[in-house]
Structures are given as structure tokens and as C-alpha cells.
């Protein structure tokens, strides 16, 4: 038996022993997702047991090095773990922006001290992070941001406002882009880290067209951000005034995430499920709607192949660095189309805003939520700009 095959057997046994049956169900609502952090509570014992087992094994962040709380898995082993988890439908034991976004940035740009402290806290689910990028006047044009940190020697005094900060009201710390040099558009931004409980930080949820939202506005009013949290633990990532490099790297990760590569089912084929749903509603699929579903499924299955190819190429260090932009563009446009079709198949039932049958209006709320997919993390138009400049090398205007 090869090492990998042995690893697969071992993983299968470990999952069998440690992933409770309740944790092998699809995620139905926010409570099914465990985000960790200072004020975290578990929905039930199964969620707690699954999280703790995964944490102790390093499986909250399987491919991070062991000294930072991970399991140190090779890419091939991590793929096997993903496959085995998806085979039994296991939920992620811990979801967090720390894992998806800050972690990769710290692994690349962080000091040893930052890695020891923050990566371990993230891996153990002890800290919940939010991301402070966008501002009311700068969405996709991120570098036009105005939030300013005035240099006071050993600390900055930060003033300004962030918007679309997901779960800011529930987060412990924020990783935040702050302008530290007003004269330099790109090389005047610092990537700061600070506690959301700091004096002067306040948050306000934003209600969206879907009727709910994880998003907040975050206000910073004379917030004191230390330049250091101890020996080799700076209060910023990378270099002062060079935070854009970190942000760009992170945006790449965000785009990969939003393009739905991890789960894949956001863009996968829906035709057969929609036929069952239509049948349940006592109706057949309209032939024209059926053909729309079939054409969607062609695109969705082809995109699934693209996602697989993209992952394979990334692992092998092939492929174009701007390719995540293409994945983000196509993935989010597909997801919008998918929910339009799901609304159509559901018919009037899918219009119900809060009935029990619709799980509190899920079809319409999800449909409305997807409209943000091609706006958040860089609009589709910005993605197309990036493709044309960086991949097709079309001339600038």
C-alpha cells in the first residue's frame, strides 16, 4: 500500500471515529457554522466534539505547519482529507476569515512572532477576525481609501469608516487597511491588526435587500493602534506603507473563495434536483425552462472541470496568477443564474418571504443575496478589466 493510500485509510477511520453523524448534514443556517472566537458558543454537543477533535488533530487548518496549529499535510494529503470529508458530507469544523484570509497573509508576510501568536489562536478557534477593506467611497477602487492613521511614534491614531465588514459586530479583531501616507496612492497604505474592543471602534449592521446580512459599517474614532504587541509581534503585517502588497495577495485568496471552489456545489448542476422540486409542487418542468436548466448544467459542469483544472495547475505552480479573477467572474455570474432558475422552478412558492415551507423565505433571500456575488470582492467589471490587462495584455486607455 502506498503512503497516500495508507493515509486515506487512516483518515477514513479517524473521520469515522470523530465526526458525529449530526455533523455530516448540509449546513442549513448560520447556527450550523462554527466561527470560534472569544464569545463563541456551540449549537450542540456534536458541534463541540467535532470542533475539538479536529482542532487537536490540526484539521481546522490541515495544511498549515504543525508549529502553528496545523497538521502539516502535504498538498496530496490535504486533497485526500478534503475528498474523504466530502465523501461523508462532513461540515467544516471551524469557519473563519482568519483561516481563509489572514492566515495565508501571515504565512507569507508575517514575522515569526506573529505566526506563533496569531496562527495558533486562529487554528484553535480562539480568535475571530473581520476584514476592514472597503469604505463608503472606495469599493472596487480600493486604493482610493481615506481612513487615516496618524503616526504618533509607538502607535497610530486611526480615524475613518469601513463598510461591508462581514460579521464586524461578532469579531474579536480586525485586519484593516489604513492610509498612512496621503501623498502616495499605492505605497501609502499599512495593513494593521487591532482589537475590536479598542476604545473608539463601533459597528452597525447593514440591512440588505435579502432582509438580513452579515455586513456592518465599522467606525473608527481616534482608535489607538500600537505598532507592536510584544517582541517580534508588530501591529501590522508586512512593511509600513506597503500594505497594498499584502492586500493584493489576500484579494487573490478572497476571489478564489468566492468563486466557489471549495464547496463547488454553488455552481454545480441543478437540473435533476429542480425536476424533483417541480414534481413535488405538482407540476412538470415547462419545456423551455427545462432547456434553460440543461444549458445551465452544461455551463455549470464545464465550470466544475475548470475549477478542478485551476486547482491542479495552482498546486503544480502552473497557470496565470490572474486566473482567480476569471474564476471569480464566471463563478459568481453562474451562481446568480443558478438562483434565478431556482426561483423560476419554485414559482410562487419561492416568493414566500417567511413561511415554514421555505425555511423562512430561503429561496428569495438566497436569490437576492447572490446579487452581491458579482459586486463583493471586486465587481465583475473589475475582474474583466484585470483579465484584459494582465492576461490578454490589451493596451491601457
Amino acid at each position, binding site marked *: 500500500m502506498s503512503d497516500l493510500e495508507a493515509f486515506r485509510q487512516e483518515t477514513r477511520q479517524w473521520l469515522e471515529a470523530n465526526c458525529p453523524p449530526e455533523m455530516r448534514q448540509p449546513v442549513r443556517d448560520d447556527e450550523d457554522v462554527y466561527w470560534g472566537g472569544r464569545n463563541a458558543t456551540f449549537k450542540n454537543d456534536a458541534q463541540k466534539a467535532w470542533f475539538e477533535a479536529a482542532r487537536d488533530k490540526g484539521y481546522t487548518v490541515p495544511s498549515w505547519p504543525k508549529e502553528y496549529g496545523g497538521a502539516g499535510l502535504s498538498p496530496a494529503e490535504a486533497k485526500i482529507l478534503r475528498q474523504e470529508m466530502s465523501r461523508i458530507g462532513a461540515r467544516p469544523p471551524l469557519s473563519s476569515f482568519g483561516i481563509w484570509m489572514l492566515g495565508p497573509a501571515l504565512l507569507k508576510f508575517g514575522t515569526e512572532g506573529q505566526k506563533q501568536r496569531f496562527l495558533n489562536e486562529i487554528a484553535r478557534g480562539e480568535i475571530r477576525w473581520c476584514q476592514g477593506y472597503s469604505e463608503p467611497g472606495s469599493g472596487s477602487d480600493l486604493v482610493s481609501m481615506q481612513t487615516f492613521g496618524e503616526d504618533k511614534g509607538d502607535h497610530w491614531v486611526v480615524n475613518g469608516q469601513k463598510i461591508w465588514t462581514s460579521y464586524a459586530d461578532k469579531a474579536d479583531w480586525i485586519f484593516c487597511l489604513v492610509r498612512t501616507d496621503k501623498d502616495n496612492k499605492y505605497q501609502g497604505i499599512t495593513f494593521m491588526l487591532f482589537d475590536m474592543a479598542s476604545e473608539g471602534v463601533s459597528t452597525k449592521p447593514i440591512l440588505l435587500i435579502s432582509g438580513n446580512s452579515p455586513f456592518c459599517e465599522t467606525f473608527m474614532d481616534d482608535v489607538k493602534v500600537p505598532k507592536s504587541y510584544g517582541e517580534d509581534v508588530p501591529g501590522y503585517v508586512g512593511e509600513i506603507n506597503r500594505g497594498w502588497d499584502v492586500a493584493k495577495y489576500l484579494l487573490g485568496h478572497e476571489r478564489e473563495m468566492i468563486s466557489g471552489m471549495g464547496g463547488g456545489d454553488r455552481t454545480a*448542476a441543478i*437540473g*435533476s434536483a*429542480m*425536476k424533483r422540486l417541480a414534481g413535488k409542487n405538482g407540476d412538470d*418542468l415547462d419545456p423551455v425552462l*427545462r*432547456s434553460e*436548466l*440543461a*444549458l445551465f*448544467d*452544461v*455551463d455549470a*459542469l*464545464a*465550470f466544475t*472541470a*475548470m475549477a*478542478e*483544472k*485551476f486547482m*491542479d*495547475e495552482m*498546486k*503544480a505552480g*502552473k497557470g496565470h496568477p490572474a486566473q482567480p479573477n*476569471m474564476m471569480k*467572474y*464566471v463563478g459568481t455570474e453562474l451562481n446568480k443564474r443558478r438562483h434565478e432558475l431556482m426561483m423560476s422552478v419554485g414559482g410562487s412558492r419561492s416568493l414566500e418571504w417567511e413561511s415554514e415551507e421555505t425555511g423562512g423565505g430561503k429561496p428569495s433571500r438566497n436569490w437576492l443575496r447572490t446579487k452581491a456575488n458579482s459586486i463583493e470582492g471586486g465587481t465583475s*467589471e473589475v*475582474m*474583466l*478589466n484585470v*483579465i*484584459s490587462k494582465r*492576461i*490578454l*495584455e*490589451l*493596451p*491601457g*486607455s
Partner: protein
Amino acid sequence: MPLYHDEDQTMLADTATSFMAEEGNIAKQLRHWRDRNCKDGFGHGLWKQMAEMGFTGMLVDEEDGGLGMGHVEAGIVLEEIGRNLTPSPFLTSSVLAATALKHGSSDLKGRYLPGLIEGESVFAVAIDETAKHRPSRITTRAEKSGNGFKLTGSKSFVIQGASADMLVVAARTSGSDEDEDGITLFAVPKDAANMSHDAVRLVDSSMATHTKFDGVELDGDAVIGEVDGGREILNAMLTAGRVGAAAEGVGVARGAMDMTIDYLKQRKQFGKLIGEFQALQHRASHLYSEVEIARAVVIKAQQLLDEGAESAELMSSVAKAKVAKAAGLAVKEGVQMHGGIGMTDEYDIGLYMKRDRALQEFLGDAYFHANRVAELSGY
């Protein structure tokens, strides 16, 4: 298996790319034969050269004298054929007919495969009977007659039918027109009596025939596989052909797209390079995305087919449909973005549009395959 070419396949791709660009390019092949009104629509010299390169027998098993390669490898050659619009019998002979002959007797293999591998023979496949691809319905009949069969009926749009040394013909030996069972495949030699070809030139300058079988007498050993058991072989042949056509389509799409992107970087209007206009940039970027996705699903389908996976059939239809859409977009945007020059015969972009149209129809268009995706998915 990762979804990109391994080292050997990359080497093959380099070889195929330079060979086809040098020997199979538009001026040397497509325009050359078209402008001479060539009755075959392709050059036998190039076919011979392709044999010397080892392309013709790629999918033929080693024990039968071929290279025993897979659909990923055949797809590499097909993509370059598509990119250069190279007219050749590769898809019909080396992919479709070769797949059918895998199931043939050693006699049949011995009779036909050496010619294919040497680039001496050309094969055609006669499946369709109507203007749209409907392989579920086969009305051409082969009735038992002595030790052999008598073939009656007609086939439409047989690509290179008149130039072929042998035609693989799907005929009904039992049952009614729509039956799944009762199909038999025959290897019909070129000189069979009572077979006639009505040749037509298609929009892409390729030659097809409406072929009539008016009591064509065939020996019993013309049967490929089992009598009444041809549907499975036919399906295998169609799946291989569809994946192959998709690979060629990706080549057409990339050829058209590359020409167009180059043009956006050269052509000036209103005092600017037209590639500076965001309206065109966004369309070009969208086009790039679609073509990339089409490439991905084609290699996925090729690998599944080579692995013998059950999902190869579904993915072959996804690939054929996706490529039809993506390549269709590539040629339409190509002609539009070239403006007036794109409408001229002298400029190549229009040739891509013509070839794409023919490839879209060949073995089922996007609608046929989307419908098949729905059926295979149970809706």
C-alpha cells in the same frame, strides 16, 4: 490525474503545434485545396506526412500496429488541426473509424488498419440520415442475403464519403426504426457495387456526400462486432468522435480568439488602439473565460474517456455543447471585432466562422447535447 498535459503530452503538443503550423496552415492547405476546387477537400500528401509523424494510428492498439495512445493525445493533434483549420481525415478516420475497428475481427483490422496507419487510406462514417444528428433513429436496412447482407437506404452528410476507401455504416438488421437494439455496423469498401455518392461542398469547403445503398451486397465478414449488437460500438464511436470534435472546436476557438486579440492590439480607430476601448476589452475577457472553460471540460472528458469512466458519456456531451457555445462566440466576436475586413474572403477570420459552423453540426449541436445532458441526468 491532474487536468493538464504531462511531460510526454507536452512534448507531443510542441511537435503537433509546429508541424501543423508549418505543414497544415491555412495558406498551404485549406486555401490551396479550396481554390483548386479539390474534389476531396483535403490533401493526401499531408495525410501521408501525418502518418510519418505517427498521428494517423495514435488510437490504434499497439498489437494492431498503432501507438496505443489515448484521447488526450488525439485531442492534442485535433486542437492543432482546429487552430490551423487543417482539412484532413483525422477525425473521421483516426478517431471515429479507428474506434469502430477496435471492435472488428482480426480479419477486418488486418484489411484496413495498415492503410490507415500508413496514411494511404481514408475512412468515412455514415451515421446520419437527416440534416440534424439523430443517431437514435436508424432506418437504413441490412437484410440477410446468402452468407452476407444486402444494404438498402441512404445516409446524409457523410464527411469525405466519396474520397473514402471504406465507410463505417450503421444499419438496422432487426427491429423498428427507433429501436435501441438491432443495429449492426458494417465496413463497406469503396468499390462496393450499387453504392452511389452525391457529393456536396459544405460552407467550410469540406466535401460531404449523400450516399445511397441500393441493395449493396456485403460479405458476412464486413460486420464490425456482432450482428444486432452495433449500438454499443456506435455509442463508443460517437463518444470518441464528440470528444474529438470538441478538441478540434477548442482549436478553432483559440485560433479565432488569438487572431482577434492580436488585431485589438494593432488596429487604430478614433486615434486609439481599439483594444483600449473598455467595451471591447470586456467582451474579449468574457470570450477568454469561455474558451478557457471549454478547454478545461475537453481535457476532463478526454481523461474520463481514457480511464473508461462511466461519466465519460455525460462529460462528452457537456464538452461538445460547451465548445459549440464558446467557439461560436469566438468566431462571431472575431468577425465583429475585425469590422469590415472580417467580412472579406482574403482575411482568415471568416474561415474560422465557417469551420466552426460545420463542427457545431457534426455529431450533434449544442442543443442536442444539452438535451442529452438533461436526459443522462434524469430530467
